[in-house]
């Protein structure tokens, strides 16, 4: 039992690579707590009885319990508690928006800074990976088969939970590599791919089959997955087609979707010096959008050698939807924030390449339906931003491949799969869905939460059926 509480009002800062150095490399920005830092930070947790942090976690990790183990220096014990609820702790410790979830409810946050829950989660997962060499235990098989579509955070979470319950799980992935947005979207400097690979290896070790190069809806339909003996199917196919603004010039050479730009760099490794993947080596880049994807694209562009990188966002700094830490890191790395700015046209030269972006200034008017103040164009505020590349990071719409080949699967007007309440049941019996395919573009942890809820529902469905 930890006796000495640490009453420092501030959380232990995260050691990071120096901004002037890291903006030239793709190595991880945040270096992680040392052992001593982790134990000290863990002692800041008051171990409150009603655990407000836990109820703010989409996968309901027993946060005070694992932190208590860290304070007691029982790191493996801490890992066991986290892994009861989360299949991908090393990932979540790095990419969850903790300040909007668990840490936002921390009692220590009332008169100071909340406990560094995310940093501790990351420490525990990394400690386990580095110190524990035992293969995870193979669960006892229950003889039932489930198919999962998409090896991203949602599908992998559902796969992990079902495999632990004894199901024979096959995950079908369209790309040549499992991981979904964790491998094609989130850059190496924020989430090293070796960590994702290790989490996937852990799932394989408990009997999960991962089949890459399988585009469900094309090579096999959901009906065929049932014919193959699967008793339930979980759709975690993720976000799909990138959105564009429908302004003139978006087809010019040098206009990328963030998906394409990041996929070239991350999945296709264009950041490595001997990579075979073509990518534009830009000098001045504008990234349109204010979310985490926009921050990832901007910071990647900087690392690919761009001199000037702008974030162009139509609302203000306060309204940026990205994690606070990502915004701060981007600012430190020299990303220029052009907020209250909206592009109206992409300008091209004779060769059809981007040579500028015509923008207008915005101001915030009355709140709209979402409660956020609506940006309105300032009159006569047009100006030209001198850029050679424009990256659109304004969201995606769900992938059409599955809905167009699955009879009876209802989708809403936006193309998102319709599910019943929290358990992810679609309008087809035995077919569940979650993550971006249902919600539209959201976060890794929400997708994981949906995968977790659906795994529970699938287990109940199959048990009641047989």
């Amino acid at each position: 039992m930890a006796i000495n509480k640490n009453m420092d009002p501030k959380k232990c800062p995260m050691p990071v690579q120096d901004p002037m150095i890291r903006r030239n490399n793709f190595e991880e920005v945040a270096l992680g707590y040392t052992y001593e830092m982790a134990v000290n930070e863990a002692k800041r947790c008051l171990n409150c009885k009603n655990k407000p942090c836990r109820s703010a976690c989409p996968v309901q990790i027993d946060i005070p319990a694992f932190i208590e183990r860290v304070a007691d220096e029982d790191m493996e014990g801490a890992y066991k508690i986290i892994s009861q609820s989360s299949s991908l702790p090393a990932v979540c410790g790095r990419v969850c928006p903790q300040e909007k979830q668990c840490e936002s409810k921390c009692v220590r946050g009332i008169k100071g800074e909340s406990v560094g829950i995310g940093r501790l989660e990351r420490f525990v997962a990394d400690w386990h990976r580095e110190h524990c060499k035992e293969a995870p235990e193979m669960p006892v098989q229950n003889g039932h088969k489930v198919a999962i579509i998409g090896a991203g955070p949602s599908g992998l979470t559902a796969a992990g939970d079902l495999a632990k319950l004894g199901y024979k799980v096959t995950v079908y992935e369209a790309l040549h590599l499992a991981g979904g947005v964790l491998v094609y979207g989130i850059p190496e400097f924020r989430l090293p791919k070796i960590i994702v690979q290790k989490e996937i290896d852990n799932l394989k070790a408990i009997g999960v089959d991962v089949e890459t190069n399988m585009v469900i809806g094309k090579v096999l339909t959901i009906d065929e997955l049932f014919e193959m003996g699967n008793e339930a199917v979980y759709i975690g196919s993720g976000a799909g087609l990138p959105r564009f603004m429908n302004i003139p010039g978006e087809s010019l050479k040098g206009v990328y979707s963030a998906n394409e730009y990041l996929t070239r760099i991350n999945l296709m490794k264009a950041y490595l010096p001997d990579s075979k993947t073509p990518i534009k080596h830009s000098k001045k880049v504008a990234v349109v959008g204010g979310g985490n994807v926009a921050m990832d694209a901007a910071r990647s562009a900087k690392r690919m050698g761009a001199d000037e990188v702008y974030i162009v966002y139509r609302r203000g700094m306060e309204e940026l939807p990205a994690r606070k830490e990502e915004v701060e890191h981007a600012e430190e790395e020299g990303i220029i924030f052009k907020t209250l700015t909206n592009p109206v046209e992409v300008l091209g030269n004779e060769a059809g390449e981007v040579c500028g972006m015509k923008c207008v200034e915005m101001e915030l008017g009355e709140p709209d339906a979402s409660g956020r103040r609506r940006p309105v164009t300032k009159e006569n505020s047009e100006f030209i931003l001198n850029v050679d590349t424009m990256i659109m990071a304004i969201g995606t719409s769900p992938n059409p491949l599955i809905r167009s080949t699955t009879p009876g699967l209802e989708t809403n007007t936006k193309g998102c799969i319709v599910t019943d309440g929290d358990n992810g049941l679609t309008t087809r019996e035995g077919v569940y869905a979650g993550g971006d395919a249902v919600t539209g573009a959201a976060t890794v942890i929400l997708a994981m939460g949906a995968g977790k809820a659906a795994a529970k529902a699938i287990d109940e469905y199959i048990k009641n059926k047989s």
Partner: protein
Amino acid sequence: MYKIVRKKVLNPTVTLMDIEAPLIAKKAEPGQFIIFRAKEDSERVPLTIADFDRDKGTVTIIFQIVGGATMELNSLNEGDCLHDFVGPLGKPSETDGLKKVAVVGGGVGCAIAYPIAKKLHNLGCEVHSIVGFRNKDLVILEDEFKNVSDKLCMMTDDGSYGTKGLVTNALEELIKEGNQYDEVIAIGPVIMMKFVCMLTKKYDIKTIVSMNPIMIDGTGMCGGCRLTVGGETKFACVDGPDFDGHLVDFDEAMHRGTMYRDFEAHARESSCNLLNKEVK
């Protein structure tokens, strides 16, 4: 793994391969495409399916050696395996209700035009095929086209084989002779498809083209393959690759196709050097 069960050199720059991929062979239809990666660190490259054998479980691809990735693919031999092979992607070509069709193929585009001609022929449709090449040495699939066409016009730019001239010359002649086509299907270089469409627009004949833009995932994620069709943004991988040729902005497609020209030239040279080293 995706084994190469047959490799055949069709001309000095074009190679045919039959790839073992039973699940894809079972579902493939003319007009659809696959994406391959020759080796673990190779680029993802889309290729339209040239043929398939559902019984043998093979998919045929025909490719022109244009860059580093196709050069790597060409370095593999019968018995070797491709690292990745995914498909069938895109929508199949529509063939319903067609009674008389002109199929126009240009260069290696003939590899994609052939399976559609074959399917139409098998459905009992009257098929007039017009195939064009730069010269005699580059001619591919002549016998195959003969077998599935009621009429075959062989065109070469320099007149070294067949008739000297462009595919559009032959097509216009056939139209003027009084052939009434339900549809023209044109597959080849973007510039060829553009001129075929300008011609058929004049005669008001519906024309379908198969677009092959730059893409990465091929499943509707990256958005790299976007085209402007009828003023709207379309994605070749999920909305196509077949489009109404009278609505496609070909000039824009040609521009976008040159995005990585310098990189490609560089990659081709370094691949050559690497392969030469391996030979030594």
